[in-house]
């Protein structure tokens, strides 16, 4: 081996990767040293995740090389990367929901062990206790060893986690900890986290990032893929900025201003959101004493009441998991409430109406879980655009659908709403990046002037520019007289957009404020009842 102490723990250089001729990475480079937290910053679609997927062995680069401790490696799969002690925590967790924490970790550990003990193609030797002998030990003794390792790592990181619990009973933040423990127990020394703070509350995010600092201090190399400037400025030692598949800068986050970083990310200053004063009219949506129960009887929404008037944005703030998802799903008719009323101006109570019966009301819905409630990823962009308007006869009769007109209107909508990455209108919607898929949803829902908008975390996971675009659309809708209900776990977004703010906690609306409001007071309302 030719390891020298000067070599970075992980270095990627000249990495290019094309998907069907479309360059996702174009000569990108990146390196991280032991003992540092290194942020990889960029817009959605800038190539951050693709570059890290190359490092973690998920993608084979078309060009370029990956060096671990100065040695060139070619990974043909994540196990080979894991054998080189590279661990990645993906944005969407790779956990078996029915298994316990310990079993999930053991599953990963067994795979890495067999890779190192058996194949041993690219790794020379691995730091874990991997060996053929270890593979022959019994299930029970191996599980006991894994449990001890989990407890050991958890204690060191300050995680409180019960290794016997089934993964599906854990919160998102807890599942993320399981992913981190999985990486550490399998011996990861280079830890890559893809958008780790996107699904966490502010407090959880801060705690996670402090944990990463602890890991780095103990000698690990931590890569933080993110688009949140705040994470970077407060917690990273170095930052690499990517744009359009290329590495555009590497700098010290503390010596670089927010404006400079933003400019590096988007290429030009991000458009700021401007707005007129609210001119609210009649209440278009009135929710009265809405109560929803989970299958186990737990009350997820308790006597919730609120009103949204035309020409205003009503923001629902709160820590995630306090009934926001249930509120939105009740409003869209996906999960009917136990009791209460949802009164639509001029229509009446629709609390118990099915989504099909709500079609004619024309609610523009922007759900948080796009591929569960809004888009069919395998179907063409045109189909996804046209599906809600077919019923109105806009694209031919019941007997003959006019696909040509649907494609034309979809192409026009996609242009108007600036959906990027559309090479053909017939391409599957699932190939769009998160921000562009969200823009496609908005293009469809806002195709005819929206009257009532229900948006749930509409800019979550989006980059600076897409986020501003989405927020701009909500303000435009409000100024055109729509009633907008914005349910968001991002307090910044609610403060920026809402004319009135309700705070949710444990399924109740615990406080209501008129904008502008002191964030301190909202914060108090959020935690007082938590």
């Amino acid at each position, binding site marked *: 081996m030719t390891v020298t102490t000067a070599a970075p723990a992980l270095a990627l250089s000249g990495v290019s990767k094309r998907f069907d001729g479309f360059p996702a990475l174009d000569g990108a480079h990146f390196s991280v040293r032991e003992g540092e937290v290194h942020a990889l910053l960029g817009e959605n679609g800038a190539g951050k995740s693709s570059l890290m997927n190359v490092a973690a062995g998920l993608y*084979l680069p078309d060009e370029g090389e990956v060096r671990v401790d100065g040695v060139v490696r070619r990974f043909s799969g994540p196990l080979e990367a894991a054998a080189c002690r590279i661990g990645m925590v993906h944005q969407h967790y790779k956990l078996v929901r029915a298994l316990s924490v310990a079993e999930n970790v053991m599953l990963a550990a067994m795979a890495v062990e067999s890779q190192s003990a058996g194949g041993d193609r*690219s790794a020379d030797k691995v730091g874990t206790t991997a060996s053929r002998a270890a593979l022959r030990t019994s299930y029970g003794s191996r599980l006991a060893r894994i449990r001890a390792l989990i407890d050991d790592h958890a204690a060191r990181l300050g995680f409180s986690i019960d290794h016997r619990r089934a993964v599906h009973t854990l919160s998102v933040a807890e599942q993320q900890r399981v992913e981190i423990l999985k990486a550490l127990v399998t011996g990861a020394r280079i830890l890559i986290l893809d958008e780790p703070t996107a699904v966490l509350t502010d407090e959880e995010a801060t705690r996670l990032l402090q944990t990463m600092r602890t890991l780095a201090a103990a000698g690990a190399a931590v890569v933080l893929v993110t688009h949140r400037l705040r994470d970077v400025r407060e917690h990273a030692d170095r930052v690499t900025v990517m744009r359009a598949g290329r590495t555009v800068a590497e700098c010290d986050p503390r010596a670089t201003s927010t404006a400079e970083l933003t400019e590096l990310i988007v290429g030009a200053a991000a458009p700021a959101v401007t707005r007129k004063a609210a001119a609210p009219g009649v209440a278009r949506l009135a929710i009265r004493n809405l109560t929803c129960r989970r299958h186990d009887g737990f009350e997820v929404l308790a006597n919730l009441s609120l009103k949204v008037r035309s020409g205003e944005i009503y923001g629902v703030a709160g820590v995630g998991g306090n009934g926001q998802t249930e509120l939105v799903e009740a409003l869209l008719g996906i999960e009917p409430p136990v009791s209460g009323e949802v009164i639509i101006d001029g229509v009446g109570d629709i609390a118990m109406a099915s989504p099909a019966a*709500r079609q004619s009301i024309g609610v523009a819905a922007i759900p948080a879980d796009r591929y569960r409630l809004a888009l069919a990823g395998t179907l063409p962009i045109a189909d996804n655009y046209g599906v809600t308007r077919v019923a109105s006869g806009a694209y031919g009769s019941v007997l003959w659908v006019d696909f040509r007109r649907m494609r034309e209107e979809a192409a026009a909508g996609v242009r108007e709403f600036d959906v990027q990455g559309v090479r053909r209108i017939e391409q599957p919607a699932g190939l769009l990046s998160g921000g562009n898929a969200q823009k496609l949803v908005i293009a469809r829902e806002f195709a005819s002037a929206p009257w009532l908008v229900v948006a749930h975390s509409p800019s979550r996971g989006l980059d600076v520019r897409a986020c501003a675009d989405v927020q701009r659309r909500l303000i435009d809708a409000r100024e055109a007289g729509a009633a907008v209900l914005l349910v968001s776990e991002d307090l910044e977004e609610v403060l920026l957009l809402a004319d009135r703010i309700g705070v949710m906690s444990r399924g109740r609306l615990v406080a209501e404020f008129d904008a502008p409001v002191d964030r301190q007071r909202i914060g108090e309302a959020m935690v007082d009842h938590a």
Partner: protein
Amino acid sequence: MRSLRRGRPVVAARRRMSAAFDAAVTTVAILAGLALSAFILVVAGVPAEELANEFIVNTLTDADNLRAVLAQAAPLAFVGVGAALAFRVRFWNLGLEGQMIAGSVAATAIALADVGPPVWRLFLMLVAAMAAGMAWALVPALLKLRLGVNEVISSLLLNYVALNFLLHLLYGSWKDPVDAFPHSPAFDPFERLPDLGWGLNAALPLVAAAAVFAAWLLGRSRAGFYMRFVHANPSVALAKGLPVAALVLTAVLLSGGYAALAGVCLSVGQEGRLTQAFFAGYGFSGILIAFLARNNALAAVVVAFLVAVLFVSGQSLQVFYQIPFAMVRLIEAIVIISAAASEFFLRYQVRWLR
């Protein structure tokens, strides 16, 4: 260190494929399956030089054989299009044979009871067959929509219910009094599908119309457009307010109706009476046809024709080389496994890594 290695194959996910690539891979897979089948036939004793003769030349150039192929293709196309209809709404209808039986039992009941004037008899038989096939398909459909019962199990098990009911009738009240064999009395001439000349009966125009109707429904109608969403992402279809239950019900009932007509082609069209095993193997063939045709109604007709060629050649192999007809099933299975396996190449690309 390891630079001396010659390299190794690695597999990477393919992001997107073109329709042409898709078609090419499927074609190669089917050809590979046929090549493997040819090898097995040669081992079983068919002279290699006779294979092409038996399968293509004799079947398609000989008028008698071509007639047999066309006659065989009609029920296969019905059952294949029927399977495709159900698969389009993610309903795995494995009860095609049960629906074939139910349809033919209903048609036979009309014939034996002499319902209506002779002029209308055949029409009534067809209507009764479709209604019965739909009713047989309605059971697993309702069980799935109302109670969440897995249709793979319920529709499959209903085949045995239908089969035993059929045997109960044939060994009991419907036993032929003329020869005392367990099959129904022969239908009157006006109770059979009319001859169109050249030895072909009305099954062919019937199936052609049915396939065009299905192609229109799936490809051009609003319901068919909605079915794409039910197939691609049921939860999105529900959330966007599409009438999912009605769409599933429509497709499944049509599937049952088409299966019933496939049965009618055999019992009323070819055999001229209700027999014990007129349906045997058609359920599997229907699934094979829908699968190879990617649930496309018109493609299903083409695939059904090819499977009919296989059936007819299989019959002549049986006669000339004493090859059991099970060999045809084996070839069907090999082709479907090859096509299924080829999906790997559609989803992944294999590269040689040095």
